[in-house]
């Protein structure tokens, strides 16, 4: 379907048509078509003149989308309505080949009634003067300026915007057009990244390529991360569109606008001087990017649109579907019961073993465990939704402890454990009777297990002897069973590691007391020392040599979880910050604007994590998404949390929850793989070609 023939089709179909057009390297053609489509929709134009009309609207109506500097007035004379004035920056005015578009849909002031009206004037009619705007971009969008000198307008199509029905309709159509423009911009951003990846992989630098430099690779990861988050957010809103909602359209536009500006500059920089040569695609893309940012709308006006929602008492999370909001309320009630206990434990820097009995009774320790083993049988995203609600109460430590079981220990045992292991351990953990720790990290580090794991398991007749030390074992001090990753073959690299389920009371297995840490007080973390620890044959989990492969696969789940918690923490911090400031008589407008922007960023990240978790659960394909979640999303969340702390200032001293949130937030970029190593892994995929258009069939 071409973009022009797509007008009148469903929104997702129109988005796909736009994506195809931009991939064909014509952002300008998209702009032209979206403008024409908007005009047609507003006119309810059925007679099939696809490109014969364009839209040029006032700033206050459109918030910047196809907004014209115009001062058009409508006068009446001899029974006709005549337009006088000038409209600048009208898209799709000049068609390819130089002809002028037939009609322009304009906003004008009716002199007689002093009302703002929508009128259609002919751009080829008497009294009309059209000029191309030579420095307007993007080139193919056909921007021009038109002067009307007593030009007759089509009376039948004149509509007064003082009529609330017409005003609402106009606003809704504009919201939809803005969403389409956002999609076109995202496509452009992805194309820019592709072209940049291509450039840096070809360009020689010193003894290698530009793409071999870590700083270049990380920059590409940042850009890709931003584009992916914006894309998923836009699709999330598109899928939920239903009745066109100006606030949602504005939210997506702002997110995309921020992203495209950063991506554009960051990528263009990598071309050096050649990025300014007119025959280099990236130099015209620079113009397109600048235009896209402008056309999506003026940020202040978009914020006003969102501010209206906020002032009505709705918070941005209410932009989510009502079904989701209901789930969140239920989950919050669950945590409200548990929170005071945990806060007491956190203050004493401990989580007693009995806590797990409480969690087990509440169903929190078996969220994703199948019902046949006594669990709740929930999907990953449902479980994450429950856990992240805990962040509203600042329970990061608790989430870490339960999360280590939910995201690592249980999936490992369920996927690779023997029947006996599942019956004993999975059932026990789900009920809260048993606590599991996961022992992977060693003193040499945790992000690169292949090189740092020295714990060694030697076979003997009836089992294995394990020797080694594990660091930072979540739940280590109170665990009943510990999943230990040990090396069994020195020459086999990642294929020489094996996973064992070691009962904690096994002679030779020493759980040291909890580490004294400045963060995550309610997550007991400690060293586990294995000294001639003899375990029976049935302690083996899965097959010999595959331990790291198993762990690697569940790392994706852990990464999604950390990202979800980080975003929830950021959201909770924003809530606390708004709460703090709401007692002030006056909030500084810059701070207010910043908080809206931060809220949008967090909302976009939240939608991204939700969509990729669900997609992962459906297809299990390991790609960039968990890595983007763990790097870009966590970074954005942490940035928001830091800003909240600065904004709140000394008021934080009387806010225990906020203090805990802020203190614990730093750990999100460390555990589950540090942001830096995760970025390296993401870069390897991107430079190897994974940043291209999505290949999986579930789109």
């Amino acid at each position, binding site marked *: 379907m071409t973009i022009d023939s797509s007008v009148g089709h469903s929104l997702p179909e129109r988005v796909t048509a736009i994506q195809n057009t931009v991939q064909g390297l014509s952002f300008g053609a998209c702009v032209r078509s979206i403008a024409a489509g908007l005009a047609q929709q507003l006119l309810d134009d059925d007679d099939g003149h696809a490109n014969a009309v364009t839209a040029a609207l006032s700033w206050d109506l459109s918030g910047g989308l196809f907004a014209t500097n115009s001062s058009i007035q409508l006068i009446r004379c001899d029974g006709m309505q005549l337009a006088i004035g000038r409209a600048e920056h009208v898209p799709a005015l000049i068609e390819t080949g130089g002809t002028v578009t037939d009609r322009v849909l304009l906003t004008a002031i009716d002199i007689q009634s002093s009302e703002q009206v929508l009128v259609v004037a002919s751009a080829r009619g008497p009294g009309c003067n059209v000029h191309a705007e030579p420095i307007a971009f993007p080139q193919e969008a056909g921007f021009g300026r038109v002067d009307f000198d007593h030009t007759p307008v089509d009376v039948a199509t004149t509509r007064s915007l003082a009529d609330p029905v017409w005003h609402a309709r106009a606003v809704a159509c504009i919201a939809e057009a803005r969403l389409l423009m956002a999609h076109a911009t995202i496509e452009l951003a992805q194309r820019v990244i592709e072209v940049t990846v291509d450039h840096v992989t070809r360009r020689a630098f010193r003894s290698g390529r530009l793409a071999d430099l870590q700083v270049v690779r990380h920059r590409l990861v940042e850009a890709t991360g931003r584009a992916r988050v914006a894309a998923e957010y836009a699709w999330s809103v598109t899928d939920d569109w239903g009745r066109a909602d100006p606030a949602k359209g504005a939210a997506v536009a702002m997110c995309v606008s921020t992203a495209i500006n950063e991506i554009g500059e960051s990528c263009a920089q990598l071309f050096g001087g050649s990025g300014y040569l007119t025959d280099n695609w990236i130099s015209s893309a620079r113009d397109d990017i600048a235009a896209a940012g402008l056309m999506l709308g003026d940020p202040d006006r978009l914020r006003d649109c969102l501010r209206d929602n906020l002032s009505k008492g709705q918070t941005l999370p209410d932009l989510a579907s009502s079904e989701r909001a209901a789930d969140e309320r239920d989950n919050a009630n669950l945590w409200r019961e548990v929170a005071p206990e945990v806060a007491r434990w956190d203050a004493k820097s401990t989580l007693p073993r009995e806590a797990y009995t409480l969690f087990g009774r509440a169903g929190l320790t078996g969220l994703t465990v199948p019902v046949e083993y006594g669990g709740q049988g929930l999907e990953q995203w449902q479980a994450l939704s429950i856990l992240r609600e805990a962040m509203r109460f600042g329970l990061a430590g608790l989430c870490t402890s339960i999360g280590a079981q939910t995201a690592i220990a249980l999936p490992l045992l369920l996927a690779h454990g023997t029947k006996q292991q599942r019956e004993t351990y999975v059932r026990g953990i789900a009920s809260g009777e048993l606590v599991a720790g996961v022992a992977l990290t060693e003193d040499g580090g945790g992000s690169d297990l292949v090189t740092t794991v020295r714990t060694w398991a030697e076979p003997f007749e009836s089992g294995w002897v394990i020797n080694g030390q594990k660091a930072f074992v979540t739940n280590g001090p109170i665990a009943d069973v510990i999943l230990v990753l040990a090396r069994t*073959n020195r020459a*086999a690299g*990642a*294929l020489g590691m094996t996973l064992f389920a070691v009962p904690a009371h096994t002679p030779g297995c020493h759980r040291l007391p909890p580490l004294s840490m400045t963060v995550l007080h309610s997550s007991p973390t400690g060293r586990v020392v294995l000294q001639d620890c003899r375990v029976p044959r049935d302690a083996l989990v899965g097959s010999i040599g595959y331990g790291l*492969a198993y762990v690697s696969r569940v790392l994706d789940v852990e990464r999604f979880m950390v990202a979800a918690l980080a975003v929830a923490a950021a959201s909770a911090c924003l809530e606390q910050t708004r709460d703090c400031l709401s007692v002030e008589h006056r909030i500084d407008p810059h701070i207010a604007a910043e908080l809206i922007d931060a809220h949008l960023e967090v909302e976009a990240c939240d939608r991204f994590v939700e969509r990729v978790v669900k997609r992962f659960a459906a297809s299990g394909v390991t790609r960039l998404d968990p890595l983007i979640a763990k790097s870009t999303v966590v970074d954005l969340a942490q940035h928001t949390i830091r800003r909240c702390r600065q904004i709140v200032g000394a008021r934080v001293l009387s806010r225990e929850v906020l203090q805990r949130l802020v203190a614990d937030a730093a750990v999100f970029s460390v555990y589950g793989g540090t942001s830096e190593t995760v970025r390296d892994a993401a870069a390897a*995929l991107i430079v190897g070609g994974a940043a291209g258009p999505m*290949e999986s069939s579930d789109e």
Partner: protein
Amino acid sequence: MHIPSANSVESMISAEQSSEAGYGRIKAIVASRLGVGPARLDDDSRIEQLGLDSVAFAEILMAVAESYAVEIAADTVAARITPVMTLRDLINAFYMSVECAQSDRR
């Protein structure tokens, strides 16, 4: 190691066909791990250039074993892999392991 019988042209052809199909299947698994379509992978590229590290080999081997529903001994495959191999060599090494595992089962 199982060597296909060379007795009949038919069995040679079918061995070649299944080996082609097997090659394609394993290549698809590698591509999926890299997040790209198989057509974008150059068989002659070195695996370290493609961004495949030791952990990736382990993950891919696991996926291959699951795909064929066989158990493949990790250390025998590990002994065959080097970073300077081409993609083609890697896929063939995995395919050989699958064949071994299947014939052991028989």
